[in-house]
């Protein structure tokens, strides 16, 4: 196990700020509420960005590669995992989705080489 260091967390922080900024801009230029835009930005960050980014920390990629390839990886892994637990018999609730993402992030950190 190896926890991400400050340098590795920086792209996540920047991405979060960019998404927040997009939510603000989206609110200004459309009639959508700030809460709606913010929730969309949060979901992109939490669902697409975080799981894949942490998984990509296992590779010697640069920050942009980790973010972009990580997002694509998240979009495959999270739904497959949810489908698997749904087949077993669990419902796809918000709690289950958040737990699955956190579990996947933890797993990605756990298997990381020191």
């Amino acid at each position, binding site marked *: 196990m190896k926890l991400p260091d400050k340098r590795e967390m920086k792209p996540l922080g920047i991405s979060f700020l960019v998404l927040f900024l997009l939510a603000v801009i989206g609110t200004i*230029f459309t009639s959508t509420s700030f809460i709606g835009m913010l*929730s969309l930005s949060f*979901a992109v960050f939490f669902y697409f960005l975080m799981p894949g980014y942490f998984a990509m920390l296992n*590779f010697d990629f640069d920050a942009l590669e980790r973010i972009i390839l990580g997002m694509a990886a998240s*979009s495959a892994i999270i739904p497959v995992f949810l*489908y698997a637990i749904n087949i077993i018999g669990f419902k796809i*609730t918000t709690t289950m989705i958040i737990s699955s993402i956190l579990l996947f992030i933890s797993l990605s950190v756990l298997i990381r080489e020191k």
Partner: protein
Amino acid sequence: MSISKESFFIAIVIFFAVSGLVVRNFPFNQGNIDKDMPPIITSFDLFAGTSYAKYIYDSEDARYNPPYRVMGVEKSLTIQPVFYFLLIASFTKLTSIPVYQTTPFITHFISVLLVMSVFVIVRRLFNLKLALVSSAIALFPESKWLFQLFIGFQYDQYSFLFVPLIFFLLINIFCKEFTTRQVIISSVMIGFFGISQWLSHFVELFLYLPFFALIIIYFAFRNKFSKEYFIVCFFALLVFLPFFLYFYPMTKEGHLSAGFSENIKELFHFGKPSPYPSYWPEPRFNSILNILSVLGIVYLAFKTAKSEWSIKQKLFLLLMIYIMMIGFSNYIGVDANRVSRQLFNGLSFLALLPAMGILLVYSVIFSNQKIKKFSSIFIILVLTVIFFYSAPKTYASLANIDINSFVDDAKWESIKWIRDNTAQNSTVFYLNGFFHEFSMFGERPFMEGIVLPTPESAQYNFQNLCSKKFSEKFAGHWGNGEFAGKRRYLKNRNGIFNFSYIYPFDYAEAKKSFDYNETMSLVPLRFFDYAVVQYKGSQFDNCIAFFLNESLNLGHVLVWNNQEMAIIKINKSSTGSKEGKQ
């Protein structure tokens, strides 16, 4: 100008691409993604995707068909490629906005992500300049950007997203860029990507499997069957096979009922070119990009002659050629409906050719060392030209797609009323129908009185009504199907290949009322709970007025109307109840 500034520039370009989509005129929700209504109404696939995703979102279960899409049958196992719907539904659970909005959002998002994925791969394998130019071309084709949004087929776009990823991981594994631990993680990921394709749109899985198999076989011999070869095969299959074995028997009941070999045979009709479907835009570059592509081929030939390609670059170029070969294989008779889509999906790969053409011009101009310092300005200029040349046309195309919506607010209100004010098992008759089965958003089992392009039911209904004859029975097509075999659905799984089945309208009241027919059924009006009609704005206004008056005379009740649409609750007290319904 340093490279990081170029990266900043591409970030600005991407920002415009995304913001352009946000501010464009969505005819339905007016750009307000809080609204509980679809933002764009153009394609059946978007309806289908949205309605499945909404059912999963509401029921929190991805295993079953929405009853309203299978004629009221409850809890039938879905044989649909459920993965794309599940992605949308689970993503939406983390937001405060409706599934109606997240479906096109995810479509946009995946299309941008696909271009960006190819961008980072080209940047790593070739150089930043080529990556910047090719991704700018791919992000802003002159027209019909987001083919999927216009025509549908979001499934294949999603499925295609994993082609560059699988390729990237495979070549890194076999070129020994990864440690053993990284090879194992990558192999597990490749398994997940394969499953995602298998559970979304498996055509891409089968189209690109031969290419990836060739890569694996090539490296197996090149690396003398080193341990990576076994690790990849073992771990990828370890993830892939359980899901494959779970879903294959189900899809064999429907989409693959004829078996793999028969389905593959159906793709090929060698001898004459297979035409594009009439409603498709032509998958072609414009003349400027064609000229640049020719220059790109010169650049390719020049570099090839000098043997300047690394093995990774060669394989990437081979993948680009492979996509092109598949995309144009309709000219040798392969079903255009399947293969030509790859030209849209693979645009970010194909954009490499005109981008190479631009690089050829670049290398000629900047062979002079004196002006070398202006080279970055040239790239920025090219990106700016691509943006200002293409973006307005792209946005204009999107606006054109938007105004081609075939339903309006008044029709949506009637659908919404049905959705929000009727019992879950109510059955609805849409006398005028909705082109492309918009009615599925009502979330009730339904029959449509007009279904294009088959005119029989419309002829029957309106010949009667327009000649002032109120027939006891009405003709129509029952909404959707999604059958698993002949007019049946999967009810329970009793073994890997063993299912029990359930049939629609297999209960006393329905059997007594009508003979269900996949093409056209004649159903008594009293069988329905509600009838929805468009009484203004169609060529049948007088006929519908007659229908409404006669219905009210017969004791049915007008429960809702607006300036265009009306909903009648069928009075069943004099005609018997609907006991025994599934």
